[in-house]
């Protein structure tokens, strides 16, 4: 479905140039031309006042028989012997998609000694759980997990697969999609069903969060996407719910794994598990000195919160990179996000815009963070933070 300009109709008004998010239209000799940067998003088609821009239908090569593929799958990532929250969050969303499509919801559980986790999947709404449990799968490995999920897809043919946009999810999700030869939409923050076609519509931020794109995967199955953690709420767990457990024998052998995890270094305690945090207290350049970061940590302590940092604070060496929130760091979505002395560059906002409530403290009333904040205090963060910490202490002990 390429976009074409009918040069005879084009009046060189330039309307299409300004709406193209990809800068893929150029004016030459008073006519608009589409360049190879075009992604066929169609933004220009609706804008053209003389209907000179058309969406050309191309004969798609039918890649696969789509009707063989059914059910919505959620890949459940295991971390420290437990299901990561994002898997449960996706079961909530997956349930809605499955119901909307009139299909079943299934979970994929890969690991060793993880059978007991299937009950959490049923409690979160899963109708089925595909369990691949083997000693070789005890640790995440790109090769073994890719091969295992690929095998499941080949045998059971799901229509949709949701995975968490975690480091591991993004690592092998792309490989699986490529091996299957299907589309994968990365780091989604919105899921729905396209009314006209019944396809899953995947919505995700692009251009550093400046724009949102809704993506579909019309002719290939399964329709795959990774979804950002903490964007969706965990469904209420109901342990009276039961489902079908399908045990699948692993074909993985030790020699199939070309990389090997030698050791894990846990530098993280609660304080930097930002992805799963309910409350995050983040500090930025406005903290002025590394010593002052203790003010951020004290508030976090009182609230049982994780500690985040802006890129400026990480670049200055005040906090290790694992704490960084933003486009180059982690994307978070807590219930409450405290931005302390953070001006709110677009890259930072891209990493925390799915927070429920944002509370900002900054001395500059024009700081962009206030546009994003639900509550803002204009004032010196070094003065405000200790008082805020004291007040929360009082509330907690009350």
């Amino acid at each position, binding site marked *: 479905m390429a976009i074409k300009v009918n040069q005879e109709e084009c009046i060189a008004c330039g309307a299409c140039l*300004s*709406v193209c*998010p990809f800068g893929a239209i150029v004016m030459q000799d008073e006519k608009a031309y589409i360049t*190879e*940067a*075009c*992604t*066929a*998003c*169609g933004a220009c088609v609706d804008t053209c006042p003389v209907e000179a821009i058309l969406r050309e239908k*191309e004969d798609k090569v039918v890649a696969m028989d789509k009707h063989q593929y059914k059910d919505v799958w959620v890949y459940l990532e295991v971390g420290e012997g437990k299901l990561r929250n994002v898997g449960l969050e996706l079961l909530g969303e997956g349930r809605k998609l499955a119901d909307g499509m009139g299909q079943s919801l299934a979970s994929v559980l890969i690991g060793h000694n993880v059978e007991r986790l299937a009950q959490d999947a049923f409690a979160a709404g899963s109708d089925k759980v595909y369990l691949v449990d083997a000693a070789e799968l005890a640790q995440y490995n*790109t*090769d073994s997990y890719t091969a295992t999920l690929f095998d499941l897809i080949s045998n059971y043919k799901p229509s949709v697969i949701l995975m968490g946009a975690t480091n591991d999810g*993004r*690592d092998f999700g*792309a*490989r699986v*999609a490529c091996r299957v*030869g299907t*589309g994968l939409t*990365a*780091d989604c923050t919105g899921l729905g069903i396209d009314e006209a076609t019944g396809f899953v519509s995947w919505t995700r931020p*692009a251009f*550093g969060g*400046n*724009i*949102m794109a*809704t993506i*579909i*995967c019309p*002719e290939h199955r399964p329709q795959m996407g990774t979804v950002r953690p903490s964007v969706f709420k965990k469904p209420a767990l109901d342990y009276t719910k039961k489902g079908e457990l399908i045990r699948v024998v692993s074909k993985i052998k030790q020699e199939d794994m070309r990389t090997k*995890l*030698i050791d*894990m*270094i*846990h*530098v993280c305690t609660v304080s*930097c598990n930002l*992805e799963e945090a309910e409350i995050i207290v983040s500090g930025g350049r406005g903290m002025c000195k590394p010593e002052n970061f203790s003010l951020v940590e004290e508030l976090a302590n009182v609230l049982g919160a994780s500690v985040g940092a802006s890129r400026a604070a990480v670049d200055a060496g005040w906090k290790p*990179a694992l704490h960084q929130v933003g*486009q*180059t760091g982690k994307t978070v979505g807590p219930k409450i996000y405290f931005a302390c002395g953070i001006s709110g*560059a*677009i*890259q930072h906002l891209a990493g925390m*815009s799915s927070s429920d*409530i944002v*509370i900002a403290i900054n001395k500059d009333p024009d700081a962009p963070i*206030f546009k994003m904040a*639900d*509550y*803002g*205090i*204009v*004032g*010196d963060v070094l003065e*405000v933070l200790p*008082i805020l910490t004291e*007040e929360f202490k009082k*509330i907690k002990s009350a």
Partner: protein
Amino acid sequence: MEILVCIKQVPDTAEVKIDPVTNTLIRQGVPSIVNPFDKNALEAALQLKDKHGGKVTVISMGPPQAKEALKECLAMGADQAILVSDRAFGGADTLATSYTLAAAIRKVGSYDLIFCGKQAIDGDTAQVGPEIAEHLGIAQITYVAKIEVNGDTVSVEREYEEGYGIIEGKLPLLISVVKSINEPRYPTIKATMKANRVEIPVWTMADLDVDEQKLGLKGSPTQVRRIFTPPQRTEGVVIQKATAWESVSVLIQKLSDAKII
């Protein structure tokens, strides 16, 4: 050691603004840059070359103007640059892009390591690296923050949500790097001038062993249905009292009124 680095020319998303009237991206005046993570990838490659010797080749798929980005990489110290460019590649999603780049890498021939940045700042997918590795059938390690090569063994620190994992692999390998791995070097003026004179070879569809059905828009399973600007958050409450004490107590009151605490 033969090292390939895949780079992308991207608009500097920090400079992208939204036109408040038309609600569309203002691209005018937005500079094109080498994707920042790709510079970390190139720096990692150059450091390995400094230590072990060998050759660093940078590859990019993009429009003709992406040569500028490749020249910057040459100025930083890459030995060779190749642009993969053809109208037929236009509109490619990650699957079609990685298919095309993998074909170009096969044409380059031998390699020990392929480096990528963890993701590009315009698309943010982090998918093209792993998909290239899959097309080539080689192993990968993503989110790498430290790398050491000993003979044919590669030992890395990979970022996890909770910390770092030490992972070992054998060459050939595709590695995607995070920003904290290094500080990319600046090109000297002399090197920049020299790079500007280099004629960068352009490989088109005809130069690659590819199936036309798998290229560009045609070869892309995903389609962009709609582009829109994210809804603005409703304007919040801004508190600015004479003292920090007063501001905090107003905030606490408001939070408690809204039943947040």
